[in-house]
């Protein structure tokens, strides 16, 4: 049962990603990406990581992607940008990236996909995660907080002029 669900969720994730990366409209692409993330959240849950699944939905899809959405709305990419994007989505630009990606995928699959070792279905509970996080990995937590601080300051500084001065931005 969980296996079938797994394949379904995986298909959704992959399919949504494919769609996301091939849209001309940025907003549409973002929505598809959110769907993909939700699919991956289901995958997490199936793998016995409910805490990770929750975080995926709340933080990743709920905060980071929403940030994306805000910025895109702010940029006001209109009809013209869509036309530009469509012009760029040319098949002949696919060839080299596609080839390289296919080769990479082939290699990865070859390396990993040989044997079959099942994952036990017991979940790893949030309490255990918390204990590990603030136990051996507490230094990482501190570093991550500093990183977030840096990102905060950087984002504030970079976005300041845009908000304060340029009210007259056009497409």
């Amino acid at each position, binding site marked *: 049962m969980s*296996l079938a669900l797994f394949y379904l969720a995986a298909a959704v994730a992959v399919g949504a990603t494919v769609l996301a990366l091939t849209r001309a409209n940025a907003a549409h692409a973002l929505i598809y990406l959110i769907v993909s993330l939700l699919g991956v959240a289901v995958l997490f849950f199936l793998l016995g990581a409910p805490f990770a699944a929750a975080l995926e939905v709340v933080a*990743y899809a709920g905060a980071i992607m929403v940030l994306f959405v805000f910025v*895109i709305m702010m*940029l006001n990419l209109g009809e013209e940008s869509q036309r530009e994007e469509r012009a760029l989505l040319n098949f002949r630009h696919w060839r080299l990236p596609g080839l390289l990606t296919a080769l990479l995928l082939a290699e990865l699959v070859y390396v990993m*996909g040989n044997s079959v070792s099942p994952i036990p279905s017991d979940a790893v509970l949030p309490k255990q995660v918390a204990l590990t*996080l603030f136990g051996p990995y507490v230094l990482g937590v501190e570093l991550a907080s500093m990183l977030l601080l840096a*990102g905060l300051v950087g984002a504030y500084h970079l976005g300041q002029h845009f908000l304060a001065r340029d009210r007259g931005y056009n497409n």
Partner: protein
Amino acid sequence: MDTMLIPLEHVLVVASILFALGLFGLMFRRNIIFMLMSLEVMLNAAALAFIAAGAHWQQADGQVMFVFILAIAAAEVSVGLGLVLQMRRQMQTLDMNTAIRLKG
């Protein structure tokens, strides 16, 4: 709960596919927004691989790594989008091929 357990390799293959797709998007798209989205996809794929490994070994380390990846992604996205705003302001376009002042 179920006798049909999920094979680790299959999960890793899914993660690889997602990663490859992200890479493809990074190479293929010229709009900076889409390149950032591709980066997110790649990070997500890596997170999936970690979780799978953590579940396989029944340890919390996988999820811990996922939390860190989340923090990284958050910081990176916020700064990246700030850069997007600056780029839009200074070059009036989001095409990466115009931001080539570091060439040569």
